[in-house]
């Protein structure tokens, strides 16, 4: 394993869309999306900091966004209880899906972007057949007892974390719901590249690594402060490092195996909660959202390599 290289801020983007609620990379990490409290989504080039497009149409704060596998569509969730399927190029909303009884908190695409999965404050996970004109969800899972905070999917499973302290795996292949109870409210969920482990960000200032197969607790990572925020966490592209935001305005990077803090990134001296982040799917690069700004962090060397 290569030695850990410290991350440095390579770009700071003032999103100018109110508080940034979430930042996300697209499928190959060449673009990024930011959701604002001004009900708009913005598409950026994270390297140059160029604003490419603004998507407006939601009626309330946008909470999450995901790009499709071919980067031609975006799906976004909002507190206005709806999900919007956007055409990237035209910026027009293709479909607006409403069935959630509460604000929608998280959304994701499946592998071929034919299904969008959303989770909301109404404790429901909904699967939407996004390519057809069907306006009601294909399936609704109402097993959670509290707000759904994050949804993930791979080729045959849907993972959902909820504030009721459970991670639920919906295995489509087996037709089985597995519920792993952590006991602490879970604010975010990430999956390793090998799909063996799940990283859950808990409300008790801890990240926990769960084994997908057995449901066992592999390790815990501490150091950051989550306070009462929905702090997001992530796994870096090399699957060896974890990252999490913190309510004290920092971001923390842990070694996955040794569970020790490798770097504490001071994002800004003025405080502000670093609540949302995104890890680059390939490079050692990250996005952080803090207040109104989006920060791009990367290990300098790699950028140099690429530029060469």
């Amino acid at each position: 394993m290569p030695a850990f290289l410290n991350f440095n801020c390579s770009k700071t983007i003032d999103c100018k869309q109110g508080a940034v609620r979430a930042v996300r990379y697209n499928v190959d990490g060449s673009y990024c999306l930011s959701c604002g409290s001004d009900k708009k989504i913005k598409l950026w080039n994270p390297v140059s900091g160029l604003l490419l497009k603004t998507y407006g149409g939601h009626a309330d704060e946008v909470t999450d966004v995901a790009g499709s596998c071919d980067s031609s569509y975006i799906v976004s969730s909002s507190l206005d209880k709806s999900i919007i399927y956007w055409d990237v190029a035209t910026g027009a909303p293709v479909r607006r899906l409403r069935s959630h009884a509460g604000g929608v908190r998280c959304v994701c695409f499946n592998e071929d972007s034919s299904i969008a999965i959303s989770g909301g404050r109404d404790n429901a996970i909904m699967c939407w057949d996004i390519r057809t004109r069907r306006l009601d969800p294909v399936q609704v899972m109402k097993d959670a007892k509290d707000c759904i905070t994050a949804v993930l999917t791979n080729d045959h499973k849907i993972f959902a974390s909820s504030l009721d302290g459970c991670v639920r795996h919906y295995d489509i292949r087996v037709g089985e719901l597995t519920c792993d109870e952590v006991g602490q409210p879970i604010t975010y969920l990430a999956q390793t590249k090998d799909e063996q482990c799940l990283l859950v960000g808990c409300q008790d200032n801890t990240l926990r690594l769960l084994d997908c197969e057995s449901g066992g607790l592999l390790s815990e990572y501490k150091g950051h402060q989550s306070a009462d925020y929905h702090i997001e966490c992530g796994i870096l592209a090399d699957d060896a490092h974890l990252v999490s935001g913190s309510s004290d305005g920092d971001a923390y990077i842990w070694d996955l195996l040794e569970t020790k803090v490798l770097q504490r990134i001071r994002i800004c001296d003025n405080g502000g909660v670093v609540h949302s982040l995104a890890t680059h799917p390939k490079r050692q690069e990250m996005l952080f959202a803090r207040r109104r700004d989006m920060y791009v962090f990367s290990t300098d060397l790699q950028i140099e390599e690429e530029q060469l």
Partner: protein
Amino acid sequence: MDEENHLHRFGTPLEPLEKDEVPAKKPLAIEDQIVKDENGKRRFHGAFTGGFSAGFWNTVGSLEGWTPQNFKSSRGEKASKVQQRPEDFMDNEDLGEFGIAPQGIRTRDDFSKESEQEQRTGQRKRKLMQPPVAGPIPGVPVLEQLLRPVRDKVAVRILKSMGWKPGQGVGPRQTRKEKRLAMARNKREQYLLDHYGDEGIPSSTKQQHSEDAADDEDNDDEDEDEDITFAPDDYEPMFYTPKENRFGMSYSGLSRAPVLSKSSTTAAPMQHINLFGQLDTAAKQKPFSIRGQAFGVGAFEEEDEDIYAKDDMTRYDFSLADKQPQQKKAQYVQQRHVIDGFSEDKSNITHNKPFVIDLPRDFKPRNWLQRRSRFTPLDAERARKIAEADYKKAGLGRHDLNPEQRAQLLGESQVKKNPFKTANSVSTQEQQERSKSLLELISAKSSNFTKGGLISTAGEELPVATVAPVELSKELQESNAALQAQAASKTKNLASSQPSSGFKPFLADEAKQQRYEKFLAANLKDDKEITEFLAELQPVTLSLWDREMEKKEFMQASKIYRPLAGLMLDRFVSEATVQEGNAKQEVQPDEKLKIVMKRTKAMWKPSALLCKRYNIAEPYGGALPEVENTLKGKAKMSIFDYLETSVNTKANFQTPTIIPKHIELPKQQQGQQQREQVTLPTSKPAPTAPVEEAEVKAPLEPANSTAIKPTFVPKTPLEHAVDAARDKPISEKIDLFKSIFDDSDEETEAPAVAQGQPPELEKDAKIKEMQAALGLPCTTATSAAAVNLLRNNSPPRGLFAALFKPPEEVVKPTEPAPTKFAPIPGNKLKIAYKSREERLRNDRELAMAEVPQEDLYGPKLPSQLKPTEVQAEASIDAKLQQLWQEHAPKKRKAEQWVERTLSSSEDSDEDSTDSSSEDSDVKVKKSKSKKSSSKKSKKSKQKSKKKSKKGEKSKHKSKKKKSKH
């Protein structure tokens, strides 16, 4: 050069042509450029270039040439002179598309869109609503087409359709005279109002009469056109006058205006007699007179026309000039600043402004009994008064002492007082000092708070507070803690107190209300408990149905009519609980939090489409049981749903069974009866019913006894076999199925064989018939299963499997439970001669036995699965059944078709072995079939084989399903 000099140049020269460029076309010479109209006609022509084409092909005239208009005498047509229009003087071109008056079909302004109107008129109206750029529906918005502007109001349109025209009033048509009178009246009223205010109006009615008489004379000559009628005026003008005097309603006293003054200007009284001032009154030929009810006119006297005749020069002002037109002109002059339909108020009445007190500048309203803030101390005098008022409320002499004095007298120890209160009360010096310091502290604290300092929850002060010395703050902390504890203990009681029955929903029925209150007080959660509880309260006369309804009403009422306190209790947490929570939280961080991962698995059915999209085959080929789709029937929330929850929903509705079986015998007799039942339950002839005795005796066999008491039957060998086979592979189970289905097949044969002696099953069928005929619901467990052919007899799956399993093991054949009720054979109705207590008890038991448990979700449990106490019921059922048999009319016994359906229905349920009651049936059948086995045909055997195969298949399926769980 020479050439150039010769030439004269006009205009601008053309651009020199490029070498390669060839002019595409020879430019038209000016003289060749002809303006043509759409007909190809030359528009301008010849010498008149620039003029319009005129006439017929530029001639003066027409197709026929120029012919002068023939002279026609218009003498007869003078009245109907043709109105000439501008179009008459226009050319065809002018009326064309591009002319000055284009003609064509287009929407009228009333119906055209705004944009079109704008185009036409050239005016732009501000648009209120911009149509959405990309709406969901393409094309012209449908709504806009539907909502065309309508000019007239509906009322006006209706009126118009009924023949009304604007400018004409509604009502019976009037003759000219009537109309004139009405107009005059209105005018007069207006006039009077203008000049005299409201005092003038009542007198005007008098005037009117007299004037009518006068008018009559004038109109005599016009009487001939009596039959010509006119529409009445649009509306009658209304005259409102502000009331400025203090007279009674509609009373007009003597006019206060000076008698001889010019009354029209009340603002300027006491003028000299203006001889020419009253032209208006003179015009009416009526002298101004003083009248009024207050003026010395007796009750029986005719009111004098004029008491003090006022003579002024106007009476002698004879002028020939007619004043009418002048007046008219004045009336029709548009008054400025007055809305149409209104007229200016000429009486300069100024309304009195409400009286305003001039307050001193620094006055601040304040309730002197209240303190400005809870921290400022009251001044001593007032504090004492308030304190005294508190304990002197009762007003008796013994309250003159304050509590402390009384305590001293009684020798009680001093109670630690609230620090806020000690400031007022007489107490030890130490306390006073302490309280003072406390107050100081608190005021300091509050000031800090406003400054931005922080107060921690424990009462400690953060560094900002410099005033408080350390010891004092400690003291404060202590007292604060004490206070908090006090408050907590108080609020604790509050929280635990039940919502009292402030609201009385059943006030109409006092007894019911009392019961309801007791029900509330008892605060029972369990449904069964409630029924028991209510059964004790409810009077005996209440029917079972009423009981059930009442219970539901109570439950609903307690749900809905919760007093405010109760509602609030849900929302707020008492301080006590908050403190407890805090305490817990404080403790928590100390312990090492141990996260124990728990993994639970459950079945989940992904929808077919989801699987398809994920490119995954549906698990188990989509054979997973469908979870009921909550989204399909989108729940339409309605307030009525909520209101009628428990009482009127179909699911909750159960027809209470009214069966005359729960009549208790006196104890001793009951015991006797029981013994009888155990030994020989069938031969139980009622001593009171000798008629039935005869019927009973004949057909009964001892073999029936086992069938009748289903719960007492021990496990049959077959049942054992089924139990044992549960875990075996399917292949090994064939024998079992064979045994089962052989039986059932034989059953179908059985009745045909055993015709002579009416078998037990046949009786069951008859009971069913009877019950059906009587409209009674099925009461017995066996008959319920048998009668309801639609009932799902398949083995319980999923959730229900878990539900049903435990009782299966519980209901093992044990000692026969002592029956609670034994029927008195002869007594069909409840009217038994019994003591009140007995009846009460009976009722209670009835309620217990009949009312279903409602805290279980899902379909109703099969009654035979209910543990222990249900057994008793079942036994009763059995006895009842027996009773029915005894009373069953004989002629029905011959019918057999019911039998077949019954047996076939039992074919389908293989798992019926669960229920012990049905076991007994099976056993009986078996025994019977053994009897008739010798007569079995080969055919039937084949049949049974087929069936067993079928059964095997179905079993296989069910097994598969089970494995999925």
